[in-house]
């Protein structure tokens, strides 16, 4: 299983990848949705971690695209936004898991 991380904050992306690497997953970080699209599409056994506040194409749009795949991988949305904002942003596009920053290892691992 590969964990794809789409996160624009380099610190968050790198630390997330490092921790997942320690746990034994292979992790790839993309700074935005556009560069994620350039890579081969994720397989259904993968997990995609999407920061909702991406520059350019938004996290919500990215989740919509992933959910539209024939065999969509598991999606974990992460965000530093408030509850209210999250609801407004997501609308009907609910990811399987939504985690709020700051993230912890146990929280993350329980959803992988």
């Amino acid at each position, binding site marked *: 299983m590969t964990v794809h991380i789409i996160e624009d*904050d380099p610190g*968050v992306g790198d*630390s997330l990848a490092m921790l997942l690497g320690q746990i034994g997953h292979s992790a790839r970080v993309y700074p935005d949705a556009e560069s994620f699209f350039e890579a081969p599409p994720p397989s259904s056994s993968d997990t995609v971690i999407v920061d909702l506040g991406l520059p350019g194409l938004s996290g919500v749009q990215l989740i919509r695209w992933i959910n539209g795949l024939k065999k969509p991988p598991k999606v974990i949305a992460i965000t530093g936004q*408030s509850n209210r904002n999250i609801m407004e942003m997501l609308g*009907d596009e609910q990811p399987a898991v939504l*985690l709020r*920053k*700051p993230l912890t*290892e146990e929280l993350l691992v329980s959803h992988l």
Partner: protein
Amino acid sequence: MREDHSRSMSVSPSVSEARLASVLGTAVDGIVVMDDAARIILFNKACETLFGYSAEEVRGKNVKMLMPADYAHEHDGYLSHYLETGEKRIIGIGREVRGRHSDGTEFPIELSVGEAATPEGRQFIGIMRDLRPRKAVERRLAEAQAQLVNMTRISALDEMGAAIAHELNQPLTAIMLYLQAARRKASAGGAPDEKLVEIVDKGVREAERASQIIQRMRGFVEKRDPERRPVSMASLIRECLELVVLGDAHSGVKIFAEIPDDLPEISADPVQIQQVLVNLARNALEAVRECKHKVVRVRAFTEGPDMIVSVSDSGGGVPPEVVPNLFRAFSGVKRRGLGLGLTISRSIAQNHGGDLSVEPLGEDGGAVFVLRLPLDARAEETPAPAVSLTKGPSE
């Protein structure tokens, strides 16, 4: 068609008297002429309106009757002082004084005084402008600005809390994850380094403590329900521009507002949106302050599901190295202020389901800030989705 003007240049006494009467009658300002004993010789139409006396009523009376008691008391002294010493205190200078209406009302006037030597002796001409309309405008401006500052303060505290919580969350998340990765590394393998594991654990606990503080701050800010009501963006934008321009009238900036009258209403918190617009407009004015070519342009239009308000200026644009951190808290390069304006503005836009972005260099030769707000605020009508949120550890 040509006219012969030579006749009107004549100086026959009757003609010049008629002409004077017409000038006096037409003048918007009050004009009063008195002799060297302060007796009123002439009192024009505007004066009649201003003071509520007819010319007949005042003719020959002392000019003091047009003044409040405290001035009236001093006036004889002023006049004799001037006649004795020739020292000019008001003649040719003009100043703000108070007048007194026949009904006793006192009001501010701007008074300029001239002097004429006539065959009948020295005469003094006073020209008076009613300052009440200007005072009213000044007062309204001061009130509007005080109100804006007040509203901004209240909402800024909330917004600042939310913006800072968001900003701090990113590095804090990274810190926690790095520490947890380090802990795994330290405890993996044959001989775990107990001491190192313990230290990292302590580090994680401290990061969690910081995270709880942020969660609490965020919880506090989120308790308040957002205000959403229909807002006419066209009039809101115009109000904001008026406020900003009034507070900055001397700068010589050309401000273009391209705002269609049929701009739809949106559901928003008008105070917060006003705060964003004022912030953007002030930034733009500040950006062009030192420029030769000073242009600020505000455009509003709809685009798909969104309302767009763009504020552009001719201030040279945002340097590329500044752009990535432009919306980050405390990253500003301005000498004044905390550098929170754009952070808070973006946070407000996002709270409304929209966003605030920047094009570093636009058509006017400066930055373009683009505020995007959804025309239809979905969050308001639909109840929260049933999917449960997985919350952070401290909630």
